[in-house]
């Protein structure tokens, strides 16, 4: 039992080894494209970049599929770049590609092997989003909007953040939370 408690404490400490925090610079990172090739953030980023952690089988993430397509369409034309990432270790690259095709995503979904990127952002839930401005600073962290059920949405926080960043204005809401599925991480302590 003492060993289990020690392992739990170790797992907890690993879970909170966050590197990219609100207001800090996001340095380069690597994800895998749908063909398995490594791609760097520096090659994908734009004047404003959105990182979105998604899942193939999380009902909350799937409830946002159309909303993800919509926000991608609406803001890509304004120069915003999007990096949709699947960090779940129980969802293979093939499953991610098949899911993207079946739900009609209009963007590629990258894989995050060993949830290394999720750890650097301390991403915990799907869907979860991050907005990085032109200086490379993380300026927004949180949800796409405040309800899985579209009829209950009161605040579209991601769109508000993007509108503010594109207009060069300060964000009124820089961080939000909502219920979602936990990201299925690789077990580092066994």
């Amino acid at each position, binding site marked *: 039992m003492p060993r289990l408690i020690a392992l739990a404490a170790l797992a907890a400490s690993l879970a909170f080894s966050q590197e990219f925090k609100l207001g800090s610079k996001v340095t380069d990172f690597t994800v895998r494209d749908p063909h398995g090739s490594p791609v760097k953030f520096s090659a994908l980023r734009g004047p404003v970049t959105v990182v979105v952690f998604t899942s193939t089988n999380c009902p909350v993430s799937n409830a946002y599929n159309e909303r993800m397509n919509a926000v991608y369409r609406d803001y890509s034309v304004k120069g915003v770049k999007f990096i949709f990432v699947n960090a779940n270790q129980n969802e293979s690259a093939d499953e991610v590609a098949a899911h993207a095709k079946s739900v009609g995503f209009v963007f590629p979904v990258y894989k995050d092997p060993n949830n290394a990127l999720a750890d650097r952002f301390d991403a915990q839930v799907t869907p979860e989003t991050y907005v990085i401005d032109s200086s490379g600073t993380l300026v927004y962290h949180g949800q796409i909007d405040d309800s899985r059920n579209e009829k209950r949405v009161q605040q579209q926080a991601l769109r508000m953040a993007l509108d503010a960043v594109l207009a060069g204005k300060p964000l009124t809401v820089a961080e939000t939370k909502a219920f979602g*599925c936990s990201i299925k991480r690789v077990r580092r302590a066994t």
Partner: protein
Amino acid sequence: MLTFFLFFALHTVDESGFQKLVNSHKGKVVLYDFWATWCTGCREEMPKLIVLENRLKARGFELVTVSADDPEQDAEADKVLKQFHAPEPGYRKQAVKDERFINAIDPQWSGALPALFLYDRNGRKVQSFIGETDPRIIEAAVSKLL
């Protein structure tokens, strides 16, 4: 505020009601299980927690379930709780804003499910388990408090 929902076995609990719920369980070691009908990991975990409660109840351990579903899912949530013979009453969050509710439970909590919060006999939160957790780790933490 704690209220009884008329048609199902679920009680509702809002941001302020959760602390009242914790206070009403002082004297027991309590594991609050935040779950949802859409959360596969939660539905896999709950039966194991119920087994743990049945085994440790005599020593002063209680499991309290709090559904993060919307009211429209009450019938489904009730069905899951009955299927697993979950301890009664089961609760469902009643929140004007989910974010406020999440922060009221634990400001460090992202809202990811499953989420377990362990309280000691003094009504003090001592540990949280976010995401699927090895039942042995949960049992070790509970046993330490009994």
